[in-house]
């Protein structure tokens, strides 16, 4: 079954697929013997903002790990800048990663460095810019996330929301061609959330960088995304523009977008034989 048959909204992919910054072609991903997602087909073109949405534990972050080469696809092909990641040598993978920026779910700031040095880190490692240029560029990025005056603070001295904004500044400081944002809006107040969303859109428009948002936040991501992919129940459930998904009557799409408790996605974790055995033991040991 071709992707366009499976996902009727998927007609907005670039005409020339080799121009895509990131491309998943019928990809299956998993850990050990457990398959997390299968049948994932996605294309992200330069200048495009693509949102990947789905419930907790649906495998969104696993897709990000596949895009960065931390996880190799079990089947199908993941291509970054036209290069098959599974066949890339370590040196080629390093070269590909230098063209990417990643915002981690937990921020992953370096705790032994202050805010300024965290943002300067990629510049110091991958460029030969002099100190004045580094200072100018880092302060510029910190200004964009509203934290210019926090440059001197230690990571332990800033709040969780500020840490995520610093991590965002670090992810974009090299102005990469592909930026992967893992939950960019989590833990942000409404003002920061709006500014961050505009910053992501602005970077994509100005630098023509491809952007992938891994997110739960329907409102903010729909306001800036060109294309949305919905994953869940181990597969790609839907794909299309925000308007197309809003108009969709698919039960899974509707339940996710409306936040309805009833629908194809069960709120409660399913009971397993292991749980039944554990419960029996617990009940047997009651006084």
């Amino acid at each position, binding site marked *: 079954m071709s992707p366009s048959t499976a996902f009727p909204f998927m007609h907005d992919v670039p005409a020339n697929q080799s121009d895509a910054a990131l491309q998943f072609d019928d990809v299956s991903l998993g850990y050990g013997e457990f398959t997390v997602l299968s049948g994932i087909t996605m294309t992200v073109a330069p200048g495009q903002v693509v949102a990947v949405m789905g419930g907790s534990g649906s495998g969104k972050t696993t897709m990000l790990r596949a895009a960065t080469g931390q996880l190799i696809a079990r089947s199908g092909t993941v291509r970054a800048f036209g290069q098959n990641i599974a066949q890339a040598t370590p040196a080629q993978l390093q070269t590909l*990663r230098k063209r990417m920026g990643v915002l981690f779910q937990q921020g992953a700031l370096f*705790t*032994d460095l202050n805010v300024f040095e965290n943002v300067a880190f990629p510049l110091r*490692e991958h460029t030969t810019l002099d100190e004045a240029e580094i200072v100018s560029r880092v302060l510029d990025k910190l200004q964009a996330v509203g934290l210019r005056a926090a440059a001197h603070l230690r990571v332990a001295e800033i709040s969780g929301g500020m840490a995520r904004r610093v991590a965002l500044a670090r992810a974009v400081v090299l102005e990469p061609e592909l930026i992967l944002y893992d939950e960019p809006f989590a833990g942000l107040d409404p003002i920061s959330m709006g500014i961050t969303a505009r910053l992501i859109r602005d970077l994509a428009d100005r630098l023509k960088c491809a952007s992938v948002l891994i997110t739960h936040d329907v409102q903010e991501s729909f306001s800036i995304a060109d294309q949305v992919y919905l994953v869940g129940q181990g597969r790609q459930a839907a794909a299309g523009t925000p308007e197309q998904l809003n108009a969709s009557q698919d039960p899974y799409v509707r339940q996710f977008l409306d936040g309805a408790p009833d629908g194809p996605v069960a709120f409660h974790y399913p009971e397993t034989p292991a749980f039944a055995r554990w419960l029996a033991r617990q009940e047997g040991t009651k006084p």
Partner: protein
Amino acid sequence: MTDSSKTLRRGPISRLGGWVRGTIGGLGFFTRFFLALLGRSGTALRRPRLVSQQIHFIGNYSLLIIAVSGMFVGFVLGLQGYYTLRRYGSEESLGLLVALSLVRELGPVVTALLFAGRAGTSLTAEIGLMKAGEQLSAMEVMAVDPMRRVLVPRLWGGIIAMPVLAAVFSMVGIMGGWVVGVVLIGVDAGAFWSQMQGGVDVWSDVANGVVKSVVFGITVTLVALYEGWQARPTPEGVARATTRTVVVGSLAVLALDFLLTALMFGN
């Protein structure tokens, strides 16, 4: 799987075999880890600032505990040495006894044990927490090799800091022995220093002590980095790794000290 094979799997011989295999496998991983760090050590030469930061972090912050411990060890050596030597009427040899004890044995060994407790645990916890906080993964994704950027400067920082700390320990210890022996008890100062000057050989005593402290520096730093690198990325995992650093590091130092002493000072 048959019932008999299950019984065998749980048997003591099988458990011993599993332990031996696990230990050999662990040694193999440890050796590969060491070789991987050595292979990436060019960073230490190309970016000396990263190493000097670690020398400051590892060495400078350990200085106080090393100096204070050295002073008390020197005090005790002065007292015990004096009481023992007095029986044979050779109190003048107190300086030689204190200096040889410190330079050959106590300086490198006690410094290494304190180093494992102070700097080793700190290194393990730092690397373990960096792992738990996805900092090492973040580096990898930024096309920065965490072994090269994080571990290599710390390894060389430890290797360089350890002999300097051992020298400080010995110097302060000798001063402690002098305070107790000469200033408090009244041993002749001239005899104290001249016996030391005449009896301590630069190569067979001082240089061997330096070699020991370099070997202990490599061992303790490597164990600390390995434990942090292998730690489970949870609070409990980091706590266990930190404990293992002290236990494994200290035992390795004591075992290596015996081997090195036998090689250096045996006939």
